[in-house]
């Protein structure tokens, strides 16, 4: 996913990834990633809470709006930087 994001960024498309844990993010190195403390495959664990998933997607999109720099830009969901 990190590689895919980088390819899209180079073609002029802004990207943000939901990422499961900092170690995975360090390996994948997506240009922007919101770190979530859930199991792989469950970006809003538990699955049947649409409100939480909506909040996570919204938080990821806020990273795009922040315009912050850094390499890579990683924000942990629920941290002050996540808003």
């Amino acid at each position, binding site marked *: 996913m990190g590689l895919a994001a*980088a390819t899209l*960024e180079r073609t*002029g498309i802004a990207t*943000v990834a939901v990422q499961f844990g900092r170690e995975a993010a360090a390996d994948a190195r997506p*240009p922007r990633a919101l770190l979530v403390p859930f199991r792989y*495959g469950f970006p809003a664990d538990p699955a049947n809470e649409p409100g939480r998933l909506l909040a996570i997607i*919204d938080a990821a999109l806020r990273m795009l709006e922040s*315009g912050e*720099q850094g390499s890579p830009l990683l924000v942990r969901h629920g941290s002050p930087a996540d808003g």
Partner: protein
Amino acid sequence: MPRLSELTSAVRARLGAGRTRHADHRTPLRKPLNECVLAIISSSAYVDVAPQLDAPGVELCGFRAVSPGTPARRPPGSAPTDQSDAEAADFEADRLGVVVERACELTASGRVGRLSHRHMILYGAVDSRRRLVERTQLTAARWLTQDQVDVVLLVPM
């Protein structure tokens, strides 16, 4: 005609560039989010969720085949029969379709401009890195550009 050493250097540079530092380039938003077109890319293996979406016109494009052993989708509306089935149902419910549905809510509220008609499943782990970089991802980028997508949300599954 290029010499062999030149070709070797070019290949090494290309592979090296792909292996590291790919997080260094970031494209900023060029307009407010409520004017942007959003697409979603997932590594979800399910491609049959589109009919379940309350989002006419949404299309899911899979670049790779469903992985062997992937359980069949439960009939819509049927209840889980045991714990493992319930876990599978939870897992399934968290697939790309659910993410697209939430994104639809963001467009309905005006937070995001518009949802792209096309979303993608990029199951890259089964592919060779070179093929992924040189063909699959470039195809995805071309499609997204054609669809005038401004923002991509990537959700590994």
